[in-house]
């Protein structure tokens, strides 16, 4: 396998995972059962993780699998099971024909606009500070992300920790079963 095949191989896999992501996403929104939908969404996330890795964001790819597919989606499935919603409800939760049609038109309009905007020559360099993603730097793959995270974005990082703390507290308060005395 010569080097001349590498771009082709790369492109093939890129399209493969891209199409897989889109196909899995389509399957996700059309499933009636929440569990099936969750499974298809997890598929999308795996495909996206592959794309991340292919775009030199190996750390993010790992995080995608661990945090998204491994933690968040598990919580979703867990809630679905907890509430015993695993089976498709007798009354369909999908809107009627006209609702789907109009939603489709709206989606196409949105897509067209987004694509038109990505074609637009916008100089993003003006608004985004350039921090080179050093793969071969001293910190390795993780250092490329960790460097900016703990230097330029330290305050935001600390704030997210507070956000998480609040989210935990909120989830506990909301999820707690209320006693009769509290129910006043």
């Amino acid at each position, binding site marked *: 396998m010569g080097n001349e095949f590498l771009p082709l191989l790369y492109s093939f896999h890129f399209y493969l995972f891209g199409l897989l992501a889109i196909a899995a996403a389509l399957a996700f*929104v059309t499933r009636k059962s929440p569990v099936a939908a969750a499974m298809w969404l997890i598929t999308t996330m795996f495909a996206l993780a592959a794309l991340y890795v292919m775009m030199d964001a190996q750390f993010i790819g790992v995080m995608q699998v661990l945090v998204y597919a491994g933690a968040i989606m598990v919580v979703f499935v867990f*809630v679905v099971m907890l509430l015993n919603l695993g089976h498709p409800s007798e009354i369909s939760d999908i809107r009627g024909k006209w609702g789907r049609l109009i939603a489709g038109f709206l*989606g196409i309009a949105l897509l067209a606009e987004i694509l038109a905007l990505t074609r637009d020559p916008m100089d993003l360099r003006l608004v985004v500070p350039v921090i080179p993603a050093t793969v071969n730097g001293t910190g390795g793959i993780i250092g490329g992300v960790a460097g900016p995270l703990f230097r330029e974005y330290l305050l935001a990082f600390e704030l997210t920790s507070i956000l998480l703390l609040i989210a935990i507290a909120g989830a506990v308060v*909301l999820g707690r079963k209320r006693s009769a005395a509290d129910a006043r």
Partner: protein
Amino acid sequence: MLAEALAISAVLFTIGVIGVLTRRNAIIVFMCVELMLNAVNLSFVAFSKLYGATGQVFVVFVMTVAAAEAAVGLAIIISIFRHQETVNLKDINLLRG
């Protein structure tokens, strides 16, 4: 490569939007939102290939927020389910003016 990645991102985002518009199951709507977040993450990663590591840092933040959102959102859904025995958005109209 950037253009393709952005296109995939746009398509995924639109699928998420259509899902939000057409589904009435609160959990699925929630998952559609997660899909939209993932689509945005893809854009961030794609841009980071071109412009540097900032995009990846933002992905980390988005994931954090998504985790927090999932925790609180699902807790709310559980709470509502306890009261109303349903997660169908049609039956949930506590905010009606």
